[in-house]
């Protein structure tokens, strides 16, 4: 019995070591950079074969169009083909206010002001009409979405269309922009006071509205372990998925890195 136990123990130790090695090979940041590679956690929509095929398609698409690392709060420039635009190509610059969807249906919402009017465009990241995605400013915000910019003054979501890309130092962590947005007075599109947002200044609310928000609060939700479990993909499954796509993603990352440092050739234009 003792020998059996010790054998089992050593096996367990081996397994643990393997896990640690695996974790080292797959960077911890992958789940933040590529959240769309993780499937929808709702068991209603799970289909292992479809997920695998989708991942293959996503990787194939990524070898043609570089989809950079970006987060909610980053400023993106998307060049896409549009049949009605002059030159049949259009470019939109804006701040990413929301990331949604998983697999090939992953989307991001870009927001900017055009002619003093708030414009939002939903882009599907793996849309074949997209020709180029650039991250002009890589940063994060305090919240998981910035929909409240719709109810904020224009200055917070105005970005020039000829914005130059800002580069971060090699190996630097993604900066967090801790700006606090001052919202416009009511009426609002959503009940922002109920969303526990960190990126907005203190709201001026009537007594009644504060009371209602307090009644609708769900402070027990952070203890609901199974709710948390059911809205995420467990660590073991995440490792399995990223193990599968890791080598290909790494290759794509390296080629992109090389291309970034190569100086682009610009054909001189004749003048006069």
């Amino acid at each position: 019995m003792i020998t059996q136990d010790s054998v089992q123990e050593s096996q367990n130790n081996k397994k643990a070591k393997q896990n640690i090695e695996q974790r080292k090979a797959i960077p911890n940041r992958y789940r933040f950079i590529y959240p769309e590679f993780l499937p929808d956690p709702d068991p209603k929509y799970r289909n292992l074969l479809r997920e695998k095929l989708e991942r293959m398609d996503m990787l194939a698409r990524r070898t043609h169009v570089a989809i950079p690392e970006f987060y909610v709060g980053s400023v993106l420039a998307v060049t896409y083909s549009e049949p009605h635009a002059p030159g049949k190509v259009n470019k939109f610059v804006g701040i990413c206010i929301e990331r949604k969807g998983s697999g090939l249906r992953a989307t991001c919402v870009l927001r900017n002001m055009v002619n003093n009017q708030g414009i939002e465009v939903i882009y599907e990241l793996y849309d074949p009409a997209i020709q180029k995605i650039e991250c002009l400013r890589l940063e994060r915000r305090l919240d998981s979405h910035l929909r409240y910019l719709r109810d904020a003054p224009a200055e917070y979501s105005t970005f020039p269309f000829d914005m130059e890309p800002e580069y971060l130092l090699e190996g630097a962590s993604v900066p967090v922009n801790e700006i606090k947005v001052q919202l416009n007075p009511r009426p609002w599109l959503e009940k922002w006071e109920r969303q526990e947002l960190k990126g907005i200044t203190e709201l001026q609310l009537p007594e009644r509205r504060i009371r209602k928000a307090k009644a609708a609060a769900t402070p027990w939700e952070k203890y609901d372990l199974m709710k948390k479990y059911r809205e995420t993909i467990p660590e073991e499954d995440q490792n399995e998925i990223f193990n599968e796509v890791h080598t290909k993603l790494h290759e794509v990352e390296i080629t992109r890195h090389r291309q970034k440092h190569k100086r682009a050739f610009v054909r001189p234009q004749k003048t006069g």
Partner: protein
Amino acid sequence: MNQANVENLVNKLRYNVKPRRKFGNSDGPEGRLRKFQKTLTALIKYERLELNYRRADETRGYVDQLIFEAIRHGPEHKETMDLANFWILEKQLMHKLFKVLVPRYQNYTTSFTKLHKAPNIYPTIHYDRAILELRGNIYPSVEQYNQYEQNLLHNLLLNAAKKEFRMEKYKEIADNIKQ
């Protein structure tokens, strides 16, 4: 279609997790959790319970996840302590979670709990009953094995066939040695 929430990592549960069940409760989701608090505390205290199947299966996930969190972060982690404080109603059992259950389940590769179907009591209780227990407890096993299994007809025949096959093999080997 939603995106998976990647903010906090969780361990995979080692049993077939059913979709979220609804329990009739006038206090809403808060009251629902209060039910599980009671069951979870009792399970940690007594290590084996008999209760309704639905409630047992739903509580099982909470127990496993709480132990996973305790293993992952330990008692020094503030959020884990907060979690344990919420879930365990009898505070002396907090020590049991971190000092007894965590060492016991550290190297487990199976679920920390076990769920057995139990007979319902005719004619008073119509609901499916279940026995929920923590693995590695001190009680005798719930599962009953048939002690006359070797005397079943097919097992007798199989054993005889095995014996015959073995004797034939021995004979063959003996013949080979002779030559």
